[in-house]
């Protein structure tokens, strides 16, 4: 379309017939303007008089309405007039003028990567669920449908798309049509988000991605307002997690830092790279697991398998649990009832076992995994020592049998020398590893058990190389410990009187666990003079400072 002239547009509304004129008079010839003024259409009804559809009449019609005079308009009117002349009385509808459409600008926007976009994730999960419904054989894990979007430092989260500028248009009257202005997207963020000049958005911290309008941030803390259940799915979060209610059966919760659960935990799977605190306890029904790399605390634990790197605190009781604790169980108000409990350091509890003689097995100074490693390492040292001795014997034999060495004899001797040295080098490395494990165990404190209230028959206590079984209930406060000669002792805290534990318990040697002293001797381990100083004596002080 050529440049429009300056003819002002008429005042009347688009589509209404113009006032006056023969063509308009019979209302069979009409000019209609599109609502957005981007097109003008001439309608000629059947039976219109030839005068009303002549070139002159039609030109007058469009001029009267103020359409921009352009060659295209003139050609369209001429063509229409000719067609009408060729077929008088026939009905016609013809677009005689077109404007240039306006292209509006598009606002800038935030485009998140699908895996960080909660809406996309929800839609994908929904689609997967539908697909699973359609396919009878398909299985879907509804527990795994997590609604929380977590990000790790360095993750590219998405980009800020710049605005697209619009293009001006022209209407059929020749007037400019201004495009709508496009606005840039202003991303508001803190230092947990990095925005590159090209619009790339990168996470600068581990945590949950939180979007609120134009604001985007990575929160180091995940606060689950309610319970972990099918509405939330499993939780796997790199930072601190707080769950304000419980965790339902079969759900998994992992926290990269600490995990605090205020409600009841059912047979779920909990893990944290630091501490786990259960304000409401855990009823594991033999399926629930808890794994804290540092400390754990619970009001109660019932039929739970727990691995705790350092200290476990229990408020009321731990019943029928499998517990492996890297340093200490600190539960002065709680009872250990039933189950298998292994602790590297000391135990402080109100009660062990019950008056119903619930079989409660407690091993102090032992951790099954560590014991297995020590046992394997000790066997390896013995094998390497035997092989070294074999190589040395051969070497001796060769040296004594030969006078002047031939080249091949010299090489064989070198080989034997090397073999012996190599076995010794390897054994030295394994012995060093044993010493490191023993030092680590010693850092957990001297194995000892403090019972503040009762130690019931039915309990079995492994301490040092001994297993001890109370013959009758022993009332506390008391302490069971091992003296320098490795003999289990009983100290009554009220009187301070110490006697051999065998006076009140059946005490037998038991090789269920490795003998640390024996393995230490094999590895040449020397116990640090202060290794067993205060840690075992004063739970919660020296050991905790380590």
């Amino acid at each position, binding site marked *: 379309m050529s440049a429009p002239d300056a003819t002002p547009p008429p005042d009347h509304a688009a589509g209404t017939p113009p006032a006056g004129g023969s063509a308009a008079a019979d209302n069979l010839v009409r000019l209609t303007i599109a609502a957005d003024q981007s097109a003008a259409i001439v309608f000629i009804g059947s039976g219109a008089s030839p005068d009303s559809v002549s070139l002159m009449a039609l030109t007058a019609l469009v001029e009267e309405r103020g359409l921009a005079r352009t060659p295209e308009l003139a050609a369209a009117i001429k063509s229409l007039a000719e067609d009408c002349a060729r077929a008088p009385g026939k009905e016609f509808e013809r677009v005689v003028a077109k404007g240039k459409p306006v292209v509006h600008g598009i606002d800038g926007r935030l485009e998140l990567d699908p895996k960080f976009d909660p809406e996309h994730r929800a839609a994908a999960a929904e689609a997967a669920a539908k697909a699973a419904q359609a396919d009878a054989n398909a299985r879907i894990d509804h527990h795994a449908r997590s609604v929380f979007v977590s990000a790790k430092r360095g993750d590219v989260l998405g980009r800020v798309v710049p605005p697209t500028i619009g293009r001006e248009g022209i209407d059929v009257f020749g007037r400019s049509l201004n495009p709508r202005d496009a606005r840039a997207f202003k991303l508001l963020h803190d230092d947990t988000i990095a925005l590159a000049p090209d619009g790339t958005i990168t996470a600068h911290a581990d945590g949950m991605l939180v979007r609120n309008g134009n604001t985007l941030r990575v929160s180091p803390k995940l606060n689950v307002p309610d319970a972990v259940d099918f509405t939330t799915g499993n939780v796997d979060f790199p930072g601190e997690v707080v769950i304000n209610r419980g965790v339902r059966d079969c759900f998994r919760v992992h926290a990269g830092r600490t995990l605090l659960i205020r409600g009841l935990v059912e047979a779920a799977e909990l893990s944290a790279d630091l501490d786990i605190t259960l304000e409401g306890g855990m009823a594991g029904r033999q399926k629930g697991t808890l794994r804290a790399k540092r400390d754990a605390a619970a009001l109660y634990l019932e039929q739970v398998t727990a691995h705790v790197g350092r200290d476990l605190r229990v408020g009321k009781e731990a019943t029928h649990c499998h517990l492996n604790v890297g340093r200490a169980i600190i539960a002065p108000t709680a009872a250990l009832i039933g189950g298998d409990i292994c602790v590297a350091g000391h135990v402080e509890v109100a009660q062990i076992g019950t008056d119903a003689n619930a079989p409660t097995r407690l091993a102090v100074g032992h951790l099954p995994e560590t014991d297995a490693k020590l046992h394997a390492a000790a066997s390896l040292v013995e094998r390497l020592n035997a092989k070294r001795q074999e190589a040395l014997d051969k070497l001796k034999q060769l040296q004594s049998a030969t006078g002047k*060495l*031939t*080249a091949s004899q*010299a*090489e*064989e*001797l*070198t*080989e034997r*020398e*090397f073999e012996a*040295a*190599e076995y010794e*080098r390897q054994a030295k490395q394994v012995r060093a590893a044993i010493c490191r494990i023993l030092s680590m165990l010693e850092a957990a404190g001297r194995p000892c058990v403090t019972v503040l209230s009762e130690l019931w028959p039915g309990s079995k206590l492994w301490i040092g190389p001994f297993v001890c079984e109370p013959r009758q209930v022993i009332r506390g406060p008391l302490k069971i410990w091992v003296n320098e000669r490795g003999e289990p002792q009983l100290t009554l805290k009220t009187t301070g009187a110490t006697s051999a534990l065998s006076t009140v318990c059946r005490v037998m040697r038991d090789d269920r666990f490795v003998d640390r002293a024996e393995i230490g001797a094999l590895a040449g381990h020397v116990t640090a003079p202060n290794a067993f100083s205060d840690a075992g004596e004063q739970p919660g002080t020296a050991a905790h400072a380590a």
Partner: protein
Amino acid sequence: MKILLVDDSKTMRNIQKSVLAQLGHTQVEEACDGQDALSKVVACKPDLMLVDWNMPNMDGLTFVKTIRQTNKVTPIIMVTTEAEKARVIEAIKAGVNNYVVKPFTPDLLSQRINETLAKCQAAAQPA
């Protein structure tokens, strides 16, 4: 540091390689005789060579003499069963920096390697 081991016995090369690994040297190239070593020395450009005396195709002494015509810097340790004084002198004259007689213990070989490298480093430093 790149080290070239020249010995026709794979067992001996393995032993020497283990000793070198314990000393922290892991860039080791192997050759099974003097000729093989000559072909590898150009590409490998070793910083130290451990050479056996008695080998097929080209013996260790010939290899040392050939190398020393163009390269007087790279330290060479002769590791051999040849224990006579005359042989040792012959090797030293040919350009060997140190000498280890088989049978040897891993500790002895380590010690000779360390002292050879230390001497060469000291010599390379400007006075």
